[in-house]
């Protein structure tokens, strides 16, 4: 039972929230001030501390959870996993946008242009649109269980698509070996690695915190819907009893 004034928060999420904030402060300190600028990329390398973890959290963690949740929903019909899949996809799209924006901002000083048709950036853009499509299906106006079932099928296929798109674009770009600075070529020291690590921890915590809240909103929405239906049935019964 929850106090209405708390909304979707609970003891667990409050603690998780404070932990996330604390890690966030340390992360910012390391990412922006303590770690040194990189030799060839100067300070723009700092964008990577957000970019790389965001890509991993979005493409593999968030969309992976969507695929697994969708599969469990189709298998067991559990509403819990259906809502988890939805919440995870929405947050995944958000992190995907972070990946794209930080990637483009990194590309500008490094390559001189915002967009270079780099394999990873391009496939991330396609993935972003794939999951916007998933979110669009979740908004379709149809019976909830039909929509959930269709969304679950789409969630699984879209995750497979992420993998297919990623490999095919990488292969396509490898045919046109251009003058691209490979992100893996960065000169790395320990405080930079630590910044990456903190970024990954921070963004995973943010993901978890957002996921719980977003899930609970979906949960409350379905409760509201079914409460409305129950109330309507009660009303009919009362009418019938008269």
């Amino acid at each position, binding site marked *: *039972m*929850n106090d*209405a*004034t*708390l*909304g*979707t*928060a*609970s003891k*667990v999420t409050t603690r998780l929230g404070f932990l996330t904030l604390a890690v966030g402060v340390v992360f*910012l300190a390391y*990412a*922006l001030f303590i770690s040194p*600028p990189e030799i*060839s*990329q*100067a*300070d*723009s*390398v*700092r*964008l990577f501390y*957000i970019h790389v973890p*965001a890509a991993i959290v979005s493409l593999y963690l968030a969309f992976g959870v969507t695929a697994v949740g969708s599969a469990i929903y189709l298998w067991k019909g559990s509403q*819990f996993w259906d809502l988890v899949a939805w919440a995870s996809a929405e947050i995944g799209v*958000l992190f995907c*946008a*972070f990946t794209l*924006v*930080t990637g483009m*901002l*990194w590309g*500008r*000083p490094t390559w001189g242009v915002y967009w270079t048709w780099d394999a990873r950036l391009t496939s991330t853009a396609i993935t972003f649109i794939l999951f916007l499509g998933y979110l669009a299906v979740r908004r379709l106006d149809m019976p909830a269980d039909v929509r959930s079932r269709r969304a679950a099928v789409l969630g699984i296929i879209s995750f497979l698509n992420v993998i297919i798109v990623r490999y095919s674009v990488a292969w396509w770009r490898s045919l046109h070996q251009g003058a691209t600075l490979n992100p893996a070529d960065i000169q790395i020291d320990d405080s930079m690695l630590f910044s990456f690590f903190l970024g990954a921890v921070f963004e995973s915590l*943010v993901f978890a*915190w*957002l996921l719980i*809240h*977003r899930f*609970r*909103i979906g*949960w*409350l*929405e379905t*409760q*509201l819907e*079914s*409460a409305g239906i129950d109330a309507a049935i009660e009303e009919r019964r009362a009418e019938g009893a008269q």
Partner: protein
Amino acid sequence: MSNGWQYVVPGYGFVFAVLGAYSFWLIRRGKQLAKQVPEERRRFLD
């Protein structure tokens, strides 16, 4: 090559601003919904 701060600041600014706005929206929407949902249904699985 420029030092890159003019790209780093908007990048971090964008990410944290969007995260803040989204979190704010989530919490507000959660509170709105919690008020509407009858108490016996306002139960989370934690």
